[in-house]
């Protein structure tokens, strides 16, 4: 009798599972379409950054270096040609973030800049304030200003995509891992596919590993697609190019393995397929909202932050951003990796207990 090969069996399963995933609309939607839609929306919305609307006071001097520098930042949109009353209303509602009035000082080459902020838009006013401070404070004193403007602006250029993309990538991995794994194992169990597998010489570990290989492979293809699309179309920053991509994929693999653990647990406790989405949402939604996918965790109220800091996706997102934008190596994010690792141990310890084969 020919010797039985567990590797052959595992790979046959991985191949079958991968084919099946590629043909499953929900897997493709969750892994690619959702994250891409968010990336497209934020990519186009932001045009690569925060936008601040600044009204130019009627009667202000418009043909001066201050206004032209502001217009060139790309961050500030100057609103002109409205009456004083209109501006006052807009300012009150926060529809514009500030008013600016520029006048040439009498008997001087310098300008006097008068800015009115609004409490309706404090955070953007704050950004404008720092922009003005950095760019113009010196400017009114010195005649040559181009260099200051350049350095200040590029130094702040942390684009929306640099924040959004790692978050979306993390979410894509989370939903692929949790929903995909839970659905597949539940349906394989319920339709007795697994029982039929047990009538062949295949080992249980081969079934789990084969399924895992397929899902990780699929998730990584999705990740590469998201990263490259973000990089080439929306200027997503990859500090060290290909090395950064590889580091991100290694992090993605760690993430998907942890998230698949949630899927194994859900497939074990769900009694029917209709129970999978609600239970999966209990796992994914809080992480989607609280793990810094859309907003920085620092923006949350202090009582909420400890919850955010307990979730695995928080650390995956954090590590992804550090690697992509700050050019950190994997060793630099060892703390985040360690937290993911601890999550992995806890999750798989539970999964081993609750997972059902039949």
């Amino acid at each position, binding site marked *: *009798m*020919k010797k*039985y*090969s567990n590797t*052959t*069996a595992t*790979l*046959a*399963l991985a*191949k*079958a*599972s991968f*084919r*099946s995933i590629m*043909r*499953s609309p929900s897997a493709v939607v969750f892994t690619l379409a959702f994250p891409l839609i968010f990336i497209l929306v934020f990519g186009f919305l932001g045009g690569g950054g925060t936008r601040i609307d600044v009204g130019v006071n009627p009667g202000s001097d418009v043909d001066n270096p201050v206004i032209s520098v502001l217009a060139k930042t790309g961050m500030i949109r100057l609103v002109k040609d409205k009456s004083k009353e209109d501006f006052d209303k807009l300012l009150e509602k926060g529809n514009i973030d500030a008013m600016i009035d520029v006048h040439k000082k009498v008997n001087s080459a310098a300008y006097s800049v008068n800015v009115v902020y609004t409490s309706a838009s404090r955070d953007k006013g704050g950004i404008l304030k720092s922009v003005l401070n950095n760019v113009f404070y010196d400017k009114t004193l010195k005649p040559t200003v181009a260099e200051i403007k350049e350095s200040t602006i590029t130094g702040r250029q942390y684009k929306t995509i640099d924040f959004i993309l790692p978050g979306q990538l993390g979410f894509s991995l989370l939903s692929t891992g949790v929903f995909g794994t839970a659905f597949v194992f539940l*349906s*394989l169990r319920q*339709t*007795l*596919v697994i*029982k*039929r*597998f*047990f*009538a*062949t*010489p*295949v080992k249980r570990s081969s079934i789990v590993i084969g399924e895992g290989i397929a899902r990780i492979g699929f998730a990584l293809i999705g990740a590469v697609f998201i990263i490259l699309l973000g990089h080439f179309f929306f200027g997503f920053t990859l500090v060290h190019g290909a090395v950064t991509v590889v580091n991100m994929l290694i992090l993605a693999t760690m993430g998907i393995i942890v998230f698949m653990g949630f899927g194994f647990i859900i497939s074990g406790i769900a009694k029917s397929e209709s129970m999978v989405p609600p239970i999966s949402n209990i796992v994914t939604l809080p992480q989607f909202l609280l793990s810094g996918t859309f907003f920085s965790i620092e923006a949350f109220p202090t009582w909420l932050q400890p919850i955010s800091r307990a979730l695995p996706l928080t650390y995956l997102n954090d590590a992804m951003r550090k690697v992509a934008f700050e050019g950190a190596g994997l060793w630099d994010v060892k703390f985040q990796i360690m937290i993911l690792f601890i999550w992995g141990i806890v999750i798989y310890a539970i999964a081993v207990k609750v997972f059902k084969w039949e």
Partner: protein
Amino acid sequence: METKKAIITVTDLIKKYDDFVAVQGLSFEVYENEIFGLLGPNGAGKTTTLEIIETLRPKTSGKIVVDGFSVDKNPQEIKQIIGVQLQAAGYYPNLNLTELIELFAGLYGANIKPMEMLEKVNLQDKAKAKYKALSGGQKQRFSIATTLINQPKIIFLDEPTTGLDPQARRNLWDLITEIRDAGTTVVITTHYMDEAEQLCDRVAFVERGQIIALDTPDNLIDQLVNSGFERKKEVKKANLEDVFINLTGKEWRE
């Protein structure tokens, strides 16, 4: 039937679920290269018995030897020489028949051509179809194809004809007979006595986890007739269905 070599030997098989005894002391032999039928009402323990022989279910006690391998000590070896068709089993989702056969070839470590397997069960035209899209008879033929992938010595078919129309049933009987003629032992369960009469070389009646009769269909019918049994409005003196009802003596159960 002349003396034949036993390929499956079941001795005093007992299976208990908590306080319910599903199988209570079954003993029988299946001979090499025969079609052996396990007959009995639902819940009699047929499927449980099959699944224990197939190494899918642990037994409470008893001894089972399949082609020289013990289910306790050599389940892996047994799996390699048997083919199993489960009652109501599904297949991996989103794959076509060719891909499913490839998957099973990998699971068995068998080197076969998917198309040849499909030709054996006359499904070559459906090579690119999904399992779900097949008719009832085609599904069962495909299930039987998956049992043949590892060129097994024995195949187990659990109610392969349930729910099929008469043509599909006869078609499947031919296929099963061909498989037996090609040298494979077949163990089959069924509710249909005409099927057992036509198809099986020997049958065992299982009732409440016990075997209450075991012989060739001919002998069983003769025994009943000899005991003075007569059919009302007879065309023939009796058929196997009469033996079944007479022996089990109970109402049909779901």
